[in-house]
């Protein structure tokens, strides 16, 4: 087992390195950071632009390979290079990971918990009205892309606020910088979280509820649940202790994956509700021709996906004895 894990780890490091290098090459050969300095008023002399770009390792007059070597040797020591305007990519990444975490932590957990609860409930009530409502509801929600859902929520809130005459629910940004004091600020932050959390978790709820319902139905038909009830356990105990626990395995592995990729951010939700997290950075860095940031995002995303996949595999092995044997 230990050797297998080590081999897999080595393999993953290679994959991340290749993915990041490919992203860097792609960005460095197609993007044009020079454009942000040209055409300014008053015009900046070419030599100055060249010197600045050289400093940031972004000059398109330097051969790509030379830039790549400088970038890669920096990354190995933990230095992700400079943004197009000279700021440190590493610092920016740290700040944005924090923002994404604050945005996604609640949404990810709420989505999982509610999804599993709804799925399990509708499995127990199979073919009853509530099961059908939940089924149709999750089917419809899964057909609505995040950006449509988020925009609809924003419109609805705008109209609600206008109808009320004051801002009940906030819909842009992370917090209002004018608010001071611990409790008001916390309240303000939570208020800003409402809409993005809804738009993030609705999809997750629909997704988990479908998986959980199917798994639960599988388990409910099995002998050990019947045995548990025959032994005199109350229906509620049998369902919770024996059925739900077994049926949680697939949802839990998806959850582990979602939890690991949480740091990567939620591009659409962050952009639409104006949170400056990792997901929004993906779009911003491309639009700003910011080569080093693009490469950093690619590297970080690849690493997160592999770690998340790894954790979810470990979790399956921990939860399901059958996997461990084979």
């Amino acid at each position, binding site marked *: 087992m230990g050797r297998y894990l080590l081999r897999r780890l080595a393999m993953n490091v290679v994959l991340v390195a290749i993915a990041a290098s490919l992203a860097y090459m792609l960005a460095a050969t197609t993007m044009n950071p020079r454009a942000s300095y040209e055409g300014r008023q008053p015009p900046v002399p070419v030599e100055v632009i060249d010197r600045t770009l050289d400093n940031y390792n972004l000059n398109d007059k330097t051969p790509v390979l030379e830039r790549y070597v400088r970038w890669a040797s920096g990354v190995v020591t933990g230095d992700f290079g400079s943004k197009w305007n000279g700021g440190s990519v590493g610092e920016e990444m740290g700040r944005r990971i924090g923002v994404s975490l604050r945005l996604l932590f609640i949404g990810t957990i709420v989505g999982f918990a509610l999804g599993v609860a709804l799925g399990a409930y509708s499995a127990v009530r199979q073919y009853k009205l509530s099961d059908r409502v939940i089924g149709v509801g999750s089917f419809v929600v899964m057909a609505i892309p995040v*950006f449509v859902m988020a925009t609809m929520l924003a419109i609805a809130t705008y109209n609600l606020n206008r109808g009320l005459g004051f801002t009940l629910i906030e819909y842009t940004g992370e917090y209002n910088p004018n608010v001071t004091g611990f409790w008001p600020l916390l309240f303000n932050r939570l208020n800003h979280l409402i809409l993005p959390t809804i738009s993030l978790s609705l999809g997750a709820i629909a997704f988990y509820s479908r998986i959980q319902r*199917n798994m639960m139905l599988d388990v409910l038909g099995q002998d050990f649940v019947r045995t548990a009830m025959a032994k005199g356990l109350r229906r509620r105990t049998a369902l919770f202790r024996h059925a739900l626990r077994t049926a949680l395995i697939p949802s839990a592995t998806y959850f582990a994956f979602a939890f690991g990729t949480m740091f990567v951010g939620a591009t659409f939700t962050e952009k639409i509700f104006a949170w400056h997290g990792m997901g929004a950075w993906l779009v911003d860095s491309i639009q700003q021709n910011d080569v080093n940031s693009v490469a950093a995002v690619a590297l970080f995303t690849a690493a997160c996906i592999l770690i998340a996949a790894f954790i979810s595999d470990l979790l399956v092995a921990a939860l399901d004895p059958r996997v461990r044997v084979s």
Partner: protein
Amino acid sequence: MRSKVVLGRMLKNRQARYGMIAFVALVLLAYVGPFVGPYDWTDKDFLSFLVPPGGDHWWGTTTIGQDMYALTLRGMQKSIVIGVLTALIATTLAAIVGAFAGYFGGWIDKALMWGVDLLLVLPSFLVIAIISPRLKESSWLWFVVLLAVFTWMITSRVVRSMTLSLREREYVQAAVYMGIPRWKIILKHIVPNLSSLLIIDYTLNVSGAVIGEAALSFFGFGIQPPEVSLGTLIAEGARNATGYPWLFAFPAGLLVLLVLSINLIGDGLRDALDPGSNS
């Protein structure tokens, strides 16, 4: 005949029936609708900017006086074509790569699966977003290829693992001993036996591609102007959605309906082709 049985089961399935009816209706609307409307999608009515839906402009007009009805249907045509083509490429790729990797095994299998892993790790959104705006001059078909390249990987893994067990079946072994070339065995004996998986995968890929196109176009990384798709229209409409809701509501509503109908068909197909599964 199996195909008859499947068709019969599918027609009996209420989900699939509604999905089919809705999908055919949407396709008809997209391709026949423009002939019914009073305006062409390239027309600009300089006397009416941002007019709400009404008698003359059924679904209202845009900031530069384009007719929303004609524009939205034009966008839906493009979205449907993109979805259908992308899914076709992606599913074909998945079937071929997965079957070859599973059948040959050894270093071919390792190399192909390593490629699959690499593509899974590369942030597809980022790569497509960097490349596709630079394809401005060339055709939108390149965009379809790009989307497809990043959709097929997971299915090909499933195909591979199913091929591993199909390889040992008697009829495949018999074909081997009759001296049939290997590529022919893969195409004639293995891939057809995966058809139910591939058909279901194809359907779900169509709705995935429709959403993917719209998502990329939302940030201007997809279909480039002057061409329109549901994604570009939604992006444009979302910016003005609070004041002029019809700019957002029609393309977004049609997108959701389109995806929903395709998903319904996919689900119904799964029940009809693969009664044992319940996922």
